[in-house]
């Protein structure tokens, strides 16, 4: 409940900002302390645990590449991949590809978010808007967005525009579904309280509806970003060149054409790293909002 949790804010603010220390907002986490006896592994800090796992996986990877006589034309060792990553980033090829991909994704997501905002606003205010949203999402959400790429190319040509349209389509529907679900599940009591103290129109949306629906909005954005990210890489792979120099998917594809297998892996690692970075950003946002307000358990 926004009003009651707001009072807990100052207490949680100090600890919630930086490290993933246990907050005061979640009583069940206090149970955790006595339960950690036994496993040494569980008592290690999160960062250390995950780093150790990562090192182990990379070590296995290197061991497999060194010990088996797998052809370097089909499989690359981590050392070669690290070299390709380093060369790719210092020469600017990978950086250029990454920036281009993120730019197209950013524009596509921006348009998708705007479309989702308009659709859900209409759906919340009018019955016909709700019908339109339900119909559109049930038709278009199950459709893998990459499937409309051939049409988009036909309509917008072999340009960045075609990609942006495909991305926008990929992100609009998951965001719209989640946001409208968030609005519809707002506790009616809170809404009534808001109305009772004289909030209406935009202020009711800003101060009551949006904060109450924020967990759904964030999970909508997360899903939308994941859909968009997958779609753009897939689209670039199919598309060949995304206008200009080509993005990450194109970098992978081009490397594959010239049998530069370490570069293919380097492109994949870059995609994974960006995924991790974005996940981290979302976690930060959640920690500062819905976790602090006690609407979601910390991760």
């Amino acid at each position, binding site marked *: 409940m926004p009003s009651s949790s707001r009072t807990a804010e100052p207490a949680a603010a100090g600890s919630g900002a930086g490290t993933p220390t246990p907050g005061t907002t979640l009583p*069940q*986490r206090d*149970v*955790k302390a006595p*339960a*950690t006896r*036994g*496993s040494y*592994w*569980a008592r290690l800090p999160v960062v250390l645990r995950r780093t150790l*796992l990562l090192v182990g*996986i990379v070590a*296995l990877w290197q061991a*497999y590449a060194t010990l*088996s*006589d*797998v*052809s370097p*034309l*089909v*499989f690359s060792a981590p050392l070669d991949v690290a070299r390709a990553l380093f060369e790719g980033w210092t020469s600017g090829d990978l950086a250029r590809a990454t920036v281009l991909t993120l730019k197209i994704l950013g524009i596509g997501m921006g348009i998708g978010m705007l479309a989702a905002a308009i659709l859900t606003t209409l759906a919340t205010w009018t019955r016909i808007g709700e019908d339109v949203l339900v119909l559109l999402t049930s038709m278009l959400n199950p459709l893998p967005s990459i499937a409309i790429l051939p049409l988009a*190319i*036909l309509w917008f*040509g*072999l340009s960045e525009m075609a990609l942006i349209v495909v991305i926008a389509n990929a992100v609009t529907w998951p965001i719209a579904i989640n946001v409208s679900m968030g609005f519809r599940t707002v506790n009616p009591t809170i809404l009534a309280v808001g109305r009772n103290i004289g909030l209406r129109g935009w202020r009711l949306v800003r101060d009551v509806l949006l904060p109450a629906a924020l967990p759904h909005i964030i999970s909508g954005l997360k899903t939308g970003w994941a859909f968009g990210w997958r779609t753009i890489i897939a689209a670039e792979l199919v598309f*060949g*060149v995304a206008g*200009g*120099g080509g993005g990450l998917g194109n970098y992978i*594809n*081009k490397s*594959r*054409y*010239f*049998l530069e297998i370490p570069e293919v892996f380097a492109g994949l690692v870059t995609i994974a790293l960006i995924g991790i970075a974005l996940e981290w950003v979302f*976690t930060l946002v959640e920690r500062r909002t819905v976790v602090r307000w006690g609407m979601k*358990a*910390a*991760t």
Partner: protein
Amino acid sequence: MSREPRKGKRLRRLPAVALALVLALTVAACGEDGAGGGGGGEEATKISIAYQPGIGYAPLLLAKQEKWLEQGLPGVQIEWRQLDSGAAIRDGILSGDIQVGSGGLGPFLVGWAKGIDWKIISTMENMDLWLMAKDEKYQTLEDFKDGGKIAMPAPDSIQAVVLRRAAENELGDATALDENIVSLGHPDGLQALLSGQLAGHLTSPPFEFQEQDKGARQVITSYDAFGGPHTFNSVFMREGFHDSNPKAADLLAKSIARGVAMLRDEPKKAAAILSEESGGANSAKEFEDYITNEAVEYTTEPNGFVKIAQFMKEIELIEKAPEDWKELVFDNLAQGNGS
């Protein structure tokens, strides 16, 4: 991500992690087996032959339609697969899925320079590859500097080499038009050019002929770029497969030669078979026009290998080029003429 409140769950995750690792390694190991699958010591019971769209593959298509290989190799299952680019065929051969590949010199040489142990068992023809444009704006290569897209099967295809050769000849810079390249299979490229989505299409017969019929015109030709006729498509396989399947390799070379002879000497008969093979998509008359066009000369004689390979090395598409064309071919072909 979330912290488990109870330790029982935490312990149960361990076997799952172990299982995932075992699975990953198994998958990787399978890939390795597949990659070696081109070699093998035994005679194959199934041979997968890959080709691409276009009449550059006509000798193979004749063998396919007339079942020359099936008849000569009883007990061996022959599978014919049409793929859209040489790179796709190369991936198939590397993964062990495809035993016999065919296509332009580009993808073959990229693989050869990277150390794939493959060689050419037969070439199929000399062909003049044209850059076609429809919009009046594009009269010479210079006009493409505005960024107009040029489609071709792949950035490593022989068409990409032709474009760079021409760019160096006419614009003084081999990479001048690299940003213009779009990867599209020939049939898709034809549609895209005619519907106005492309500035140019660097393709092969019969697509360039069809585009010409629909109002497109030549901007450059590969014979001009390389100063004379050159081989377009070859048929290749890994040495391990060649050595353990001598009978199949020999019959394949002979079937291609038989197809080439029919295309040269009995174009009417060959055209009728090709039309049948296409399921009637093109008439026998159309095929006859295509295969007798002067841009097409069916021959098993390698032509221009060294010239093309050395240019590819010069512009750093590949790291090494052969000194002699005989390094690229099996003995049966090396005994004849070539360049």
